[in-house]
């Protein structure tokens, strides 16, 4: 069962939401509940600790005189990084993009018409159900990277290669459909990633399992998504020596 929390200081709204949500859970036959309601962010943070994660949170965007919805969501995320956050707002045009990108908020519901709210809640709950069922427990290796106060866990098999950008220890991490630039050293990752990664050049650390072809003649390593890394002469000799050894 996935717990559902509602946090809104307007009782009329939270009552209405409880009603809508409990109805929709029955209709969707979802594995969700119980629905808990609080009127202050502090109480929600306490409540969150008492039940399982991930959970679904319906949060008001603004609590006058208390922490903002953004702060509350950030605190909730610390404990429940994979939970589902939906905001409740009075306006159509609030900064939802910010919330979506920063907190991976799922959606927002505009206070007001009962039927419109019902449609929105149903959409949210359906999408949560879909996401939960499509999510398989991943038990591959992860590469952890600290960015500011957060630690990102990147599945190793999505990594193509690390590239040193030369100046002031900047690295560019090439992932499937993503580039990430940050401060660190190749040495650090060469040590952390171990044998699965290969230093084919002074400035490149490639994922062995993502290599398609090593072109010894042109000294290029082709990755399976078409990207190319240079192959240094030293790495080439090492590579040849290794192959000879394997052949024996």
């Amino acid at each position, binding site marked *: 069962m996935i717990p559902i929390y509602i946090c809104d200081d307007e009782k009329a709204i939270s009552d209405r939401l409880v009603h809508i949500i409990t109805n929709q859970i029955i209709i969707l036959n979802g594995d969700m509940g119980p629905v808990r309601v609080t009127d202050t962010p502090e109480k929600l943070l306490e409540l969150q600790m008492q039940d399982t994660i991930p959970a679904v949170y319906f949060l008001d965007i603004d609590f006058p005189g208390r922490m903002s919805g953004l702060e509350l969501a950030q605190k909730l995320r610390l404990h429940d990084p994979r939970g589902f956050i939906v905001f409740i707002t009075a*306006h159509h045009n609030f900064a939802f993009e910010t919330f979506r990108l920063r907190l991976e908020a799922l959606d927002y519901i505009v206070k007001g018409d009962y039927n419109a709210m019902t449609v929105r809640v149903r959409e949210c709950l359906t999408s949560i159900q879909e996401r939960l069922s499509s999510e398989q427990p991943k038990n591959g290796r992860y590469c952890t990277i600290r960015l500011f106060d957060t630690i990102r866990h990147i599945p190793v098999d999505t990594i193509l290669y690390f590239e040193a950008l030369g100046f*002031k220890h900047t690295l560019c991490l090439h992932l499937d459909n993503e580039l990430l630039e940050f401060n660190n050293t190749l040495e650090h990752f060469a040590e952390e990633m171990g044998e699965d990664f290969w230093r084919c050049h002074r400035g490149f650390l490639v994922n062995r399992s993502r290599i398609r072809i090593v072109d010894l003649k042109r000294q290029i390593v082709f990755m399976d998504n078409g990207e190319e890394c240079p192959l240094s002469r030293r790495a080439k000799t090492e590579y040849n020596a290794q192959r000879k050894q394997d052949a024996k």
Partner: protein
Amino acid sequence: MPLSFRLFSVGVSYICFGIGLYALASGILEKKIKALPCVIYTIYYLFANALILAGIFRVYVQVDAYEYEYVYVNVINLLNGTIGNLLHAIMLAFILRRFLGADFWQGLAAAFLGNFIAYTVNSVLMEVTSYYSPTFGGMYLYTFITIYIPHLAVLLAAAIVVPILRKSSFYRYFSHLFSGKLWAAGTLLFSFLLMCVWQVLDWLYPDTTPGIGYNIFFFALIVVALFWVQFLAMYAAGQDKIRAQEETIAQHQAHMALLEELQQEIRAFRHDFTNLFSGLTLQAQEGDLAGIQDFMRKTSSYFDEKLGQEIQQMDGLNNIRLYPLRSLLTTKLADMKKRGIHSVIEVLYPVDNKIVMETEDLLRGLGILVDNAMEAAPQTDGTVRIILLQEEKELYIAVSNNYDKEPELSTLSRKGYTTKGKGRGTGLASYRRIVSRCKGCVARTYLKDGYFMQELRLPVA
């Protein structure tokens, strides 16, 4: 005097000179003085000069006819001076570029200027000390006074000049001189001539005995050079001011346009609203509750739809307290409006000037991101979203756009990638350079829900 002591003295003087040159040049460029490049340059300087000295010595020995010797030595001296200095300067520029990320030509000019300052201080003091040094006390004291003091003075001069340059943010003006090719060439030439002045004079008038007048001439030269720099500084500052004013005017114009539009829409809205309400009053009089409820449902989001976006944009822009940034975004938003690109800007909390990155870099970087997003957004129904969120420790920036054809990230990372044809697409490369220059920055590029996302996270002091 033993040879070892002589060599030691020469070594010490070159080391002092090398360190001084490095410090002055990096001071002019307003870079941190780092130990490793300094040591490398000093060692290079020491050995290169030793080689040149050895060369002179050999030539000196080989020449036997007395009358030719003089000419030879002079030519070698010129070589020793001008070409040697040029070599040293080029080397220094390379080191500055490699270790401190300075522009090569700027580094070269800085090396020339540093050389001029160091040389002037050194030679003037050499003249003075050899003129006033006591004749008694033996050779050691004499060497100490005439060699060690002038060379140590170079270090002292560097220690005095560098903080002054930093305090007066000389580099701002200096870099302004390199904005155009002609200006850059002129500056390079001028600083080169300044550096050569000593050798040229020495070559032209080898017999001149240095006197007080001679020294005064050179101090005057320094003063003139300083005035020249000061004048350029003022000129540059004036130019900056004019540009800043023009920018402010453009920003105000864009702002006014936004306000005007808002006003137009409010007027239209008011008109609508009176109409709607007269209908509502009628319904209320008739007691048509269902009709009123229907009306409420239809109009509840009406205001948001009509005016919400403009108000939100204004709110967002008003939250940016870093005025150049606000001005940049205002003009970009106006530009997007003109091109028919739908724009969203969200700035939830105030953005101020506590960002670690240089403001100029920030403007350039964000400008590149927004320009790219505008270019890549489809002609019809293009959307660009700009999000700024300043929190306790970081400023989060995200610029995103939708696209016609999914961009391939694997080709994007290549140098000079562009979809815009030849001669463009340097934007991303310089963006990457800006990011890699800023310590603690995190940049992320990815695709999400049909949007091409560029994220930049900057540390906040």
